[in-house]
């Protein structure tokens, strides 16, 4: 009954995953710092200037408002904002050694469902480090772009008019080669044909999905330019290269998913390594 599989594949391939804009409110912003009220106020002002999206209600939590992590989480839940804004290595002094985001931020991104915008850590003099220009180029970063409407919608929300939304999909070459190595040892499967067909299909799905995002953006936000890059490579280095080459101002990535794999995958190493780029962590 291989023909059943054959036709099922044809119809499954024809069932596209179109983009659907999942609008979410970004009205209530909560700024969290481990310094005084003046600094937190400055943090809020500079961030509001950097982002094009409008803040309707601003709340703050300064060093005086919480003593420990549990305390902070409780207050966050009580305030229930639409967006948390803070910086990496909050409440820790190991920001000089970029090997983690810090325990507060690690927990904050996992224990709440509220998106967290992570800014670079302030320098020793207390100056916040923002990109020289306002946020113009936003990139959605994920292991699997197709169908991730929440991620793309959030990235689109943070892309200003005249700005550029980057949608990328890097298929891990190393994993692909490992599977192909196995395929090459199975006599029933023609290796070269499998390589070509699987690679083409892996890249076609995100390409089709990006096309549907482009169609949506052209219809609803025509001043936003959607750029894309879909290909094979080493994810981490490809993303680092793309981010540097295209001077990305804001990264949008998942920290939670159904399988709890996001932080174990590419998001965490990227978030840790790219210390100078603001990151919206969903």
């Amino acid at each position: 009954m291989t023909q059943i599989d054959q036709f099922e594949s044809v119809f499954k391939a024809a069932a596209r995953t179109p983009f659907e804009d999942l609008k979410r409110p970004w009205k209530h912003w909560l700024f969290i710092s481990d310094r005084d009220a003046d600094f937190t106020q400055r943090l809020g002002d500079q961030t509001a200037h950097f982002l094009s999206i409008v803040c309707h209600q601003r709340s703050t939590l300064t060093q005086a408002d919480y003593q420990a992590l549990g305390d902070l989480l409780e207050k966050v839940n009580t305030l229930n904002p639409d967006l948390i804004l803070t910086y990496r290595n909050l409440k820790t002094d190991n920001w000089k050694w970029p090997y983690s985001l810090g325990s507060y931020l690690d927990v904050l991104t996992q224990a709440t469902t509220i998106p967290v915008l992570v800014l670079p850590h302030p320098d020793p003099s207390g100056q916040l480090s923002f990109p020289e220009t306002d946020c113009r180029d936003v990139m959605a970063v994920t292991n699997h772009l197709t169908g991730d409407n929440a991620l793309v919608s959030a990235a689109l929300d943070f892309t200003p008019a005249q700005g550029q939304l980057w949608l990328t999909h890097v298929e891990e070459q190393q994993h692909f080669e490992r599977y192909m190595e196995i395929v090459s040892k199975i006599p029933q499967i023609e290796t070269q044909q499998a390589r070509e067909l699987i690679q083409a299909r892996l890249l076609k799905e995100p390409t089709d999905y990006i096309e549907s995002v482009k169609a949506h953006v052209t219809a609803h936000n025509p001043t936003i330019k959607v750029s894309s890059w879909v290909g094979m490579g080493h994810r981490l280095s490809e993303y680092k290269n793309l981010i540097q080459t295209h001077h990305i101002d804001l990264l949008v990535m998942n920290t939670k998913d159904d399988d709890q794999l996001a932080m174990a995958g590419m998001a965490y190493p990227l978030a840790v390594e790219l210390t100078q780029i603001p990151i919206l962590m969903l």
Partner: protein
Amino acid sequence: MTETAHHLVPLSTSLTFLGFLVLMILALAFEEKIHAKKSLIVGLFAIVTLVLGQVFHLLPIGPMLNVFGEKMEIPVYVSAVDWGVITIILGSSLFVDVSSQSGLFSWIAIKLTKASKGDPLKLYIYYALMTVLFSAVLNNVTAMIIVGSLTGVSLKKLNRSNYLLGFLLTQGLLTNVGGLLTLISSVPNIIIGQTAGISFVRFFLVAAPYVAISTFATLMVGKKLFGIKGLTSDQERAEAAKLVASFDERDGIKSHGFFKFSGVMTVLFILAIATTSVLPFVSGLGMGFVALSFAAIMLVRFKASVDQFYKAIDWDLVGFFVALFVVINVMEHAQVLALIGQGIAPILGAGERLGSGLLLIVSALVSSVTDNIPLSAMLAKILAGMDQGKDAASWWSVVFGANLGGNLTPIGSASTLVAVTIMHKHELKLSFVGFIKASFPLAVIHLVLATAYVLIFL
């Protein structure tokens, strides 16, 4: 003693061969249980019966005269095969295989899905009509595979997997109704049509009214039986329309030129097959020639990889036919067919109308538990031996009975077996008895309508 054209055959010999025939039919009925393919089962019986035929000196051995009057050594197992039928099957399946590579059939299927706007009732009706149409143009198994696999994908997309059983069951049964529409829609049609000398156009004109009535009745009863309802609120309609709109019918089309070419060629293929008997120069070459010629023209598109299509041919089916023709030929020489004919004679002797009705019911019951191809091949030979004219209702009794009997059980026809396989693939549990219970009302309606049709109109 029973008498052949060449010699007398003792009754005990005929009964011995009849025993082998019954054994073969039983082995085919339990094909799934004994895990053996049809071609091998019948092939082994062909070998045994050929040897036995030699042992009992039943088979014509020696040179044969060809069309030029020249003597040729053609073994009996070659001359026994109806190569006209084999070439039709080979040519048609190659043609369908190549033309389906154009994305034509999946394009039609997805277009219809989108036209339904995701409404389950409309989808049920559209898919049913598509099943009938595809079964008429393609073979029943391919039609069931195309429509059934799309049904699984689209109902899942629409979150309506609860309707899957009803959809697949209806489609499985309708493949056998649609398989009645033309002379090339199913193998029993080809065998009976070829033997009786029924033309493509006459076959269509006789079968079409029944297919239309039976399809309509199936849809009316099926939607009630399986509780399939249309969408009622605007919100439901909007959501369903959005879901099916995401299907891209162009996805399977690799070349627009070849897609259009396949569409044109499919229409021409049907027209050519329909008019073979009156086409100058071609009529003498037969439908098999037409089918193989169209397949060859289509294969030009894939000239460097035609071997892929040869591999895709259902060689089990072809081998099965070849071996079956050999077995039937041996049975003919052993006077087994004459014996069965004597058994059928009282049925036909019950009067032209009653006899035809009874033959239809008997054919349906037999083909519900075993393959309808040996049945139709055997009955075709027997009826031809009884000098039934090409307009006799008894031919149609076999056509209707052999095709529709498959609807009574899941093993009755290859296409209902495909429907059950797709159900199992989607983890729908349906036992043998469960299938009979679920399909019985519709299968009975088909048979009652067919019997009435044969009795009243033929």
